[in-house]
């Protein structure tokens, strides 16, 4: 039973992801594209849930769906003068499509041909407490955590710098 549920859930989420990406690519309206991105982020969170990465799924929802997509939509709105400007040509070149197709094809072929050591999903999935303990453990991921903070600070400073007004 759980496997069937897993299977259906996976199928639905897969369609949502791929469909959302396709939608984002093919729409002519930037605003719509932004919303498609939002949808992709949410579906990805669903995939994380499926993979027993609960904390990650929540972070995904918060950061990607909540902040990133919203940020994108806001900047689009800033750069728009009129509502009509949102509509642009579709800009899809067949050469790039071909390349992407070749890439995907090769990746899939490689994945399928490889003898993966694991057949199905293993049993154990640690809970949030274990996750947290590991994250803040000095011998674990504490240092990268601090470095990540530095990176975010630098990005913050950089973004502020870039968006300042020209000197009068």
């Amino acid at each position, binding site marked *: 039973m759980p496997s069937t549920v897993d299977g259906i859930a*996976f199928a639905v989420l897969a369609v949502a992801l791929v469909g959302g*990406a396709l939608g984002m690519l093919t729409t002519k309206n930037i605003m719509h594209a932004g919303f498609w991105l939002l949808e992709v982020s949410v579906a990805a969170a669903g995939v994380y849930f499926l993979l027993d990465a609960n904390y990650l799924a929540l972070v*995904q929802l918060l950061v990607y769906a909540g902040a990133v997509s919203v940020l994108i939509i806001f900047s689009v709105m800033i750069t728009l003068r009129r509502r009509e400007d949102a509509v*642009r040509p579709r800009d899809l070149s067949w050469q790039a499509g071909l390349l992407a197709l070749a890439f995907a094809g090769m990746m*899939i072929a490689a994945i399928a041909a490889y003898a993966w050591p694991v057949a*199905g999903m293993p049993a*154990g999935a640690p809970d949030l407490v274990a*996750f947290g303990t590991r994250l803040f453990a000095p011998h674990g991921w504490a240092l990268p955590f601090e470095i990540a903070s530095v990176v975010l600070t630098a990005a913050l400073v950089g*973004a502020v710098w*870039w968006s300042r007004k020209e000197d009068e």
Partner: protein
Amino acid sequence: MRVGLEAFLILSAVLFSLGLFGAVSKKGAVQVLMSLEVMAVAVNINLVAFSRFLTPLTMDGQFFTIFAMVISAAEIGLGLALVLAIYRRSRQSEVTGLNELKG
């Protein structure tokens, strides 16, 4: 039916290729950034899938993903700031306009 590792990997590959397609084709800066985000999402899915199937107890992939998300967030913030700066300078935000490297 059991959903195996290959399924997640293939899903990730397809998603990545779609994002790649967009990044290489689209002319608007914002659209390129969005495609890059899709690619990042695909990669994260890949990482988490590996983590779940190959190292379920140490959850290495998940931690990796956390930090990848941090970096993506930083990237998108800066990227958008750049787009705004370009827009302010040239009243349009197409990547084709940035061709000073033309030989």
